[in-house]
């Protein structure tokens, strides 16, 4: 009954609706990191959970501020003395107020998950439940931080408490960005830790859950306490959980672990083998046709490759595949135009330019790959994604193209094959292709 009144009359509804509006507003008004890479928030389940937690960087300061404002209510209304005379235990009286705010922020986050989840359900071909505990930690964090705000608001009942807490939360989170494990004390993840091929380590999820429960317990304790001893006791849950959480999280190298189910291969063996990871299974029909055309074109090479396989990562854990496999990467983009797909599969094995430090080196690699691809297709065209470079270097490309064609006909396939082999190991450029610098 009181809970219903609190849900209608306290800050709770504003907090819940405000959370949803600010979050959805941020997601849609800015082209932020949440729409990029392999797990956009509206395309993959793990991305939905992790990117909505990334938003904690921006919404937690508001949540703690609103919590503190709620915690100030008795002081603002000058009812402390009156309420102290009631025979109800303080925690019983605090429960509906705290419960209303907790329910409201939980509902706000659930609303955000629904907004994203409807889109993910339409987009993702890979369904799993590993994202649920990850999202559940965000609920604990939101409730815990809101309660902490209420507790501090009650402890320091001044009008400046909410803005100071809000700014402090934003500053603290901004300060721990890119510092490694301290960020794990917040719900947010760094962008590189959010991919469709990884999920959050269970140990990290459990430790973070413990941490935010500790924060919430301390917040509620501070909200209820009125004497110094009870206030000090209220600090215990947070202090005790910190004793467990800090040593555990500071030993964590990466909060994510590989998701073997997402990396498992889904193959089309109806002809030359073409495989994608399960996370991208819906792309297989698009890829099969152009990939087989590309394999057919590569038949001109000595010991030609026989299969096209998606590899999960271009990053540090790239391992060169066997020579008869053409790797493709769907990390950054996945074209739908068959001609572009064919070019991408053909173009120097689609291996990324592994050392991107030196632009001249990148240019030499791309020119070599452009010409090698042209030799396979018989037509000189810019590589997908490298149009600008191809325009800038068109004379160089023409020279190399003619130089390659001037080689003895028997040597040309060997040269192109050598470039492809080298490319698999992140090496190889014009020298490999032409034999001369």
């Amino acid at each position, binding site marked *: 009954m009181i809970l219903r009144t609190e849900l209608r009359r306290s800050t709770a509804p504003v907090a819940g609706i405000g959370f949803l509006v*600010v979050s959805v*507003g*941020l997601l849609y*008004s*800015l*082209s*932020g*990191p949440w729409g990029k890479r392999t797990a956009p928030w509206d395309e993959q389940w793990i991305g939905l959970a992790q990117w909505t937690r990334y938003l904690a*960087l*921006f*919404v937690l*300061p*508001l949540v703690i*501020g609103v919590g503190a*404002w709620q915690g*100030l209510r008795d002081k*603002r209304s000058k009812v402390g003395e009156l309420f102290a005379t009631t025979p109800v235990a303080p925690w019983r009286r605090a429960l509906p107020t705290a419960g209303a705010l907790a329910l409201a922020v939980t509902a706000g986050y659930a609303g955000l998950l629904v907004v994203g989840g409807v889109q993910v359900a339409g987009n993702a071909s890979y369904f799993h439940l590993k994202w649920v505990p990850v999202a559940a930690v965000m609920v604990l964090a939101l409730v815990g931080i809101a309660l902490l705000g209420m507790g501090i608001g009650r402890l320091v009942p*001044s*009008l*400046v408490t*909410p*803005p*100071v807490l*809000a*700014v*402090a939360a*934003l*500053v603290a989170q*901004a*300060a721990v*960005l890119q510092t490694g494990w301290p960020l794990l004390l917040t719900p947010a993840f760094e962008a590189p830790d959010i991919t469709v091929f990884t999920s959050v380590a269970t140990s990290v999820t459990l430790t973070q859950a413990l941490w935010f429960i500790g924060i919430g317990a301390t917040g509620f304790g501070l909200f209820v306490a009125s004497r110094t001893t009870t206030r000090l006791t209220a600090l215990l849950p947070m202090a005790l959980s910190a004793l467990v959480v800090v040593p555990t999280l500071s030993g964590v190298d990466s909060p994510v672990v590989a998701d073997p189910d997402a990396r498992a291969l889904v193959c089309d063996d109806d002809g030359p083998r073409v495989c994608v990871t399960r996370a991208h299974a819906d792309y297989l029909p698009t890829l099969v046709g152009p990939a087989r055309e590309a394999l057919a074109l590569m038949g001109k090479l000595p010991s030609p490759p026989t299969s096209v396989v998606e590899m999960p990562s271009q990053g540090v854990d790239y391992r060169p595949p066997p020579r008869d496999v053409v790797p493709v990467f769907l990390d950054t983009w996945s074209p739908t135009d068959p001609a572009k797909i064919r070019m991408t599969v053909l173009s120097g094995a689609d291996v990324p330019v592994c050392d991107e430090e030196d632009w001249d080196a990148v240019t030499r690699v791309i020119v070599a790959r452009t010409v090698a691809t042209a030799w396979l297709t018989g037509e000189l065209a810019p590589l997908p994604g490298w149009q600008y470079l191809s325009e800038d270097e068109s004379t160089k490309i023409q020279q190399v193209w003619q130089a390659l064609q001037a080689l003895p006909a028997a040597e040309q396939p060997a040269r192109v094959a050598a470039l492809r082999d080298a490319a698999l190991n992140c090496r190889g450029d014009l020298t490999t292709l032409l034999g001369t610098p």
Partner: protein
Amino acid sequence: MRWLLLYLRSRQVAAGTGTALACAVGVALLTGDNPTRQLMFAVLTTTAVTAVTATGLAGVDPALERTAALRWWWRRAAHVVAIGGLAVVLGVAVGPPVDTEVVVRGAVGLAGLAALGATVLGGGLAWCVPMVWTVVAVSALLASQPPAGPLLTWLVQPPDTTAATVAAGGLGLAGLLVYAIRGPRVQ
């Protein structure tokens, strides 16, 4: 003089200014050398100062204050200008080493937003408006550089961005006028 003293006391200006100074020093201590981070923390300094001092834009009983036979409009305007001025002074003196134009632009816009907040939400919640705008700006700064949409992300644009200056000036002026004419929200 006596009026001014009573006004400052009724709006808890000393406590607000002291807290603002403490916040600015705290932010400055965490800044570091990274230019992006310096810009972000410069914005956060200005936000802290305006958000904290915005609580003084309304007294304990705004309805009662209105009945006083005083010309409120210039007094209110002076208060908003003073908040902006304090944000500039603390931003330049204590805050991270960024272009002064960025500090002034942020102070003008955020002081206007704080005044708008006090008019619409009251003194206690006035901080929400500059805070929400800062949150948007900071997330845009983390998303891409320079951030897109200068009219929305004027807080974190590089110096000499006309659209950002216009946005900050417009918000500052709007806040000043609206608050001077309407005064803080009456419950």
